[in-house]
């Protein structure tokens, strides 16, 4: 039976896959980054259909908003000619193999997971926040430590060395 949510699911899937194919197939690096934003928004759509509204918004906010924009920002500072022939690099079979391996692991993991027969239910973000900051406080802090390390690394990398000349 075709329900609206099924149609939307396929729509999100087409967006995700289409965007992802655009990322790897496009010969124009800017088109590739625009494909990336489409793919990431498609994933947000899948989250939304799984009633994970908070995750969907985080996906749009962090990936769609921050990460892709920083990527595009960096691309705008470069010349397009520097990236000619990026998508037909001679290592592509290796990359394809690695991608297939990751896909295999994920697919196997998903196939082995027992499908819950429970009714899908919304988890309010208040509940999510409570769990995150009580039961999962330590992993949360560890993740923020990673960000701190990245920040310090960035500062170290741009720190001027030696004299002005």
């Amino acid at each position: 039976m075709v329900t609206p949510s099924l149609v939307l699911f396929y729509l999100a899937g087409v967006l995700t896959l289409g965007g992802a194919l655009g990322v790897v197939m496009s010969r124009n690096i800017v088109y590739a980054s625009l494909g990336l934003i489409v793919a990431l928004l498609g994933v947000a759509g899948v989250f939304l259909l799984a009633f994970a509204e908070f995750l969907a918004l985080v996906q749009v906010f962090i990936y769609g908003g921050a990460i892709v924009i920083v990527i595009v920002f960096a691309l705008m500072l470069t010349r397009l000619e520097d990236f000619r022939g990026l998508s037909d690099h001679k290592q592509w079979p290796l990359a394809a193999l690695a991608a297939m391996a990751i896909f295999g692991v994920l697919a196997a993991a998903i196939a082995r997971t027992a499908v819950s027969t429970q009714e899908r239910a919304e988890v309010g973000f208040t509940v999510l926040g409570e769990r995150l900051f009580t039961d999962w406080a330590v992993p949360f802090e560890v993740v923020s430590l990673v960000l701190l390390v990245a920040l310090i690394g960035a500062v170290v990398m741009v720190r001027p060395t030696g004299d002005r000349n």
Partner: protein
Amino acid sequence: MTALEGLFYGLGAAGLLVFLSGTVMVLTWLERKALARIQLRMGPMRVGPHGTLQPIADVAKLMTKEDITPSWADKRVFWLAPAALLMPALLVWVTIPMARDLVLRNLDMGLFYVIAVSVLSVMGLVMAGWGSANKYAMLGGLRAVGALISYEIPFILAVLGVAMLSQSMDITRIVDDQRSIAYIIVQPLGLFLFLVAGLAELGRTPFDIHHAESEVVGGPFVEYSGAHWAAFMLAEYINTFTVAALVVLLFLGGWRWPAMPGDGALHTLLSLIWFLTKTYFVILAIFWIRGTFPRLRIDQLMAFAWKVLVPLAFVNILLTGLVLYYDLGWWVLTILSLLSLAAAFYIIFGRYGSRAERMTVRVYSTRELGLKPAVRPQAAPPPDGSPVQVDKAPAAGA
């Protein structure tokens, strides 16, 4: 979702689109009139009484104007950019209420939704800047990314302060929580942060470095004309209206504060009028700021975001958290917030104002620094006297 619900949402979205377009037309007229008043001019006077029909004439002009594509532009990116900017501006209004129950869909995480979706609009500016294959547009796009990413942080942190006070991200609930006291009284610092960061997000003077006419001749939109340029302007004015509406909803008590009489349809109508009145006051203040302050330089703009607004936003959250945790009265937060606002103004105007050179860039010559002049490799002219080869077209147009 039933067919009836679908019809309801469809009609609601169409109504919202008409309402927002109408608002934009009013705003363009209002801005020209307000700026004219400030500059002792008359503003538009020819079309209709006091130029009130000017927006209609403008729309007619823009729609019939030739739509030019630069020959080096990346066509697809160039044409997608206005849509990429306009979409988030419209999507945000799905969850912004104008009165109780006068909202397309009230979301539990409305505030977070508004922030997450509005972040996407930067993409439109970047695409316009890159796709135009124009150096000024490109520089404007780069400036837009830098400024918008920086000012997003104080913007979001200011919103977080309000969410903490109300313990909710549901905009209708935040308004309801202000029935006895508006958050402008509780958190004046928050309002200051939100308004300043909001102005920067909009790219309005004094923060309009990404379309600074004297520097990048209009920024990402230089190459656009006609209907596509109109789409950019539509997005800009809708965003202005959005920020003003959010100021009203989050800090000025929306339609609830002070009391709003009546119930049922009458209450909704009165609420809408009250909400719009407040919003237009905020918008007039925004125009007033535009007419008053000169534009900040780009380094001042970034320094102001990271050295003043971000620390202040953290102070705001810290104070709010302390007051909530120790369950002190709200008047304590009012006083603390006002004190930190005063301290901030002292730092901005007292310290930087009196010693203006602190905020300016001093360019030293190599002699002043006691350094050897740097030797720059210079391209030797070709021996046969042919002209130096000029770079080909900019990167776009693969």
